[in-house]
């Protein structure tokens, strides 16, 4: 197992280097730079002075080497769009996205797996068929549309939930702790519901398909032949095997923790990583974009390693190989 983890970590370092390099050159290939904003009163002379201050007037290769050197020292640079060091910007935005996406992932996996099992276990009932139709419907809805509809219904037509932000901008700081907690929950309901519905529907579909694939297996037939109760057959025999693809899915979902769901952050003005990266790309905030790419790549790699380890722990056949 140790060797397995060591090899994976080595792969991870190579992947990180490659991702950083590709991201660096790709973002510099896009037209413009951090100082190409629309303001006719700022002359190019002044813009060039600003470029020189941050070293953007140097040859690209030199900029690349300097960037790698500073990253190696743990310095991620200065964010031109947020006017703070990049580390500070990440530290500010990351927890917000982790909170939202972490909760959404936990809820969607919990609901999705349960619904998937329910739909298979009670496939002939009206409730199971309704659940199947509903999960298919939500799965096929455009994410933006669903978010906007929820916003319109609960934020505007029935104005019972806030339409944006993480908290009441004015009153939150003057609330009692319980009021402040309730305020946070209220602001989180719409983005969390949107994400949970969309992710949950997808997981339900995967879980259902995976379980249906496992049910005709010999070991399930044997369990039934031994007279084991059907719900026990599903929970103890079929589900354990059908959960293996979910481990992969969970590993793949990990990077989404920091990318967030951009559309949710945009529609609900949730000030998280997704929105920050989107804005940073638009204004060519090179250091912030690159740091976010690196953070994303780290999570992709960690997610994959964790999924592999999880797979190996759950499935003895993988361990043998």
């Amino acid at each position, binding site marked *: 197992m140790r060797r397995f983890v060591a090899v994976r970590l080595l792969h991870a370092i190579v992947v990180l280097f490659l991702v950083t390099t590709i991201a660096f050159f790709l973002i510099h290939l896009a037209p413009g730079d951090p100082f190409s904003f*629309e303001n006719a009163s700022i002359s190019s002379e002044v813009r060039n002075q600003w470029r020189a201050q941050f070293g953007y007037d140097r040859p690209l290769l030199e900029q690349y080497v300097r960037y790698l050197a500073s990253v190696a020292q743990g310095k991620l640079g200065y964010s031109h769009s947020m006017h703070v060091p990049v580390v500070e910007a990440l530290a500010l935005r990351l927890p917000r996205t982790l909170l939202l996406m972490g909760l959404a992932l936990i809820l969607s996996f919990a609901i999705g797996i349960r619904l998937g099992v329910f739909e298979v276990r009670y496939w002939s009932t009206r409730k199971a068929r309704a659940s199947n139709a509903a999960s298919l419907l939500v799965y096929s809805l455009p994410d933006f549309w669903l978010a906007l509809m929820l916003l319109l219904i609960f934020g505007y037509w029935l104005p019972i939930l806030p339409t944006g932000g993480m908290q009441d901008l004015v009153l939150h700081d003057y609330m009692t702790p319980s009021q402040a907690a309730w305020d946070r929950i209220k602001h989180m309901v719409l983005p969390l519901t949107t994400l949970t519905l969309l992710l949950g529907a997808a997981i339900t579909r995967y879980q259902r398909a995976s379980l249906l694939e496992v049910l005709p297996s010999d070991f399930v037939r044997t369990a039934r032949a031994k007279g084991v109760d059907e719900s026990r057959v599903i929970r103890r025999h079929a589900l354990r095997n059908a959960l293996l693809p979910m481990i992969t899915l969970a590993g793949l979902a990990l990077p989404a923790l920091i990318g967030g769901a951009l559309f949710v952050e945009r529609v609900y*003005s949730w000030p998280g990583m997704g929105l920050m990266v989107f804005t940073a790309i638009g204004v060519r905030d090179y250091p912030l974009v690159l740091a976010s790419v690196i953070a994303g790549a780290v999570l992709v790699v960690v997610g994959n390693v964790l999924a592999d380890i999880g797979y190996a722990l759950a499935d003895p056949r993988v361990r043998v190989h």
Partner: protein
Amino acid sequence: MRFFIATCSLLVLSGACADRAGTADRAATGGTIVVVVPGNEPSPLFPPLTIDIISKMLIDQIYDRLAEIGPGMNTVGDAGFQPRLARSWTWSPDSLSIAFDIDPRARWHDGKPVRASDVAFTVSLDKDPKTATQLSAIIANVDSVTVRDSLTAVAWFHKRTPEQFYDFVYQVQILPEHILKDIPRDKLGTSEVIRKPIGTGRFRFARWEPGVRIELVADTANFRGRAKLDRVIVALAADAGSATTQLMSGQADWFENIQPDLIARLDSAAPVRPVRYQGTQYAYMGMNQRDPKRLTAPHPIFSDRQVRRALSMALDRQAMLKNMFDTLGVLGLGPFTRGLADTTVVQIPFDRAHAAALLDSAGWRPGPDGIRVKNGKPLAFGLLTPTSSAPRMRYAVMIQEQLKSVGVRVDIESMDFTGLIARLEAKNFDAAMMSTGSDPARAAIKQNWATEGIGKGLQNQVSYSNRVFDALIDSAIVTFDKKRSDQYAHRAYQTLVDDAPAVWLYDILTIAGAQKRLRPEGMRPDGWWVGLADWWIPANERIERDRIGLRPSASTAQQ
């Protein structure tokens, strides 16, 4: 008759009472407003490095000028200017220096008194190349500021000009020497002070939570009187859609730029009302007169004045305006917005038959596919359009459609703002859907349209050059007689419009959405926010957030 007199007396009395109540309301302080702004984080809250409207709005609340331009926006001499940090000023007999008498009551938000040395420090900082600010070019006529005594700063000018007072006073906001003197000038852009400004304005900075909000609170000890509102919070929204939703749901109180389609839905029952104000931005289709492939050569199409005029003539600007903004649009008349415009400038008329004849006579004849051709080359050009501006995207399509009818092919090249600006800076375009701000000062027009604005790093991006225009605008700038100056300026504008380096399309629509309880005051063409410290909310219309008063929250106390 007695009954009539009694009734009248009662009405008069009740009117007077209501009036007194209104006056009392107007004088009452309190209230919190949330100004929602879409898009990116504002630029630094530091006057020399401010580049966007929202940070300009904020620094105008936090910092003061020596004097403030009057409501008439006069830029010649000092007529109409109102005292701010300077309570008075004295011109030298040769007009090459002005002594500003600093108001002794003026205090920085940290309690330190404002001194003449702050003025001298500010000018030296703004002029220092290491600061890298556009202000150094704008105040190039200011040689230096000397300190006569602790409350008298003397500004010295290189030459006497009609707008020298405006150039100095309007552009320079006074900075605190005691806060900034130890920070290297080339490090100011990344220093902490740009995020935690200390000024002298009627609002002081409270906190900046990146991506979420910037908060200002009334400076209760301000020498000009405290702001009527307790607090102004700038809430950062993801985009215009989110900003509109926050306004309509009551989370926000003011959104400076609502979309035309929303205005139609704002009936008397809606909690929000539209507030129209004059802006400074105008949009136009600029035609590059240099060949983007070889900048030293003239553009194969747009270097011909006759062709430019024909293209202008072929476009029904009024119909496009109606299509885009319905009755709300304001037609562009030249290089200015309507609030600062010379409305007597004669426009190039819409006349497609005449346009076709002009193109014929310029040698552009209809080809087999309907597109005009000259020397085997089609009359076709690319039109750069920013994807983030819905009006400009729609205008580009309308222009494409209308010019097709006279045998001109337009290829729309849509791209994000950053990419578009890079192409404009490199002069790598045929035509572009551009926008720029107009300035009350006459000289400002030169950077975009005079020959001296052409060149690498300069702002005349379409490379328009006409020595007659240059001479006329120079005459307007140096003439002290306002009437004669206006005449020169009018002739300059007429020359520019006749030359058609651009098709003047529209004033950028400036209609804000405001919660009905809000009473805005003192809006000016150069900023809806100018009178923000005098905005008020009637006591009987206040909501929960208006009643929290000035007590600091736990978060602001920490900052």
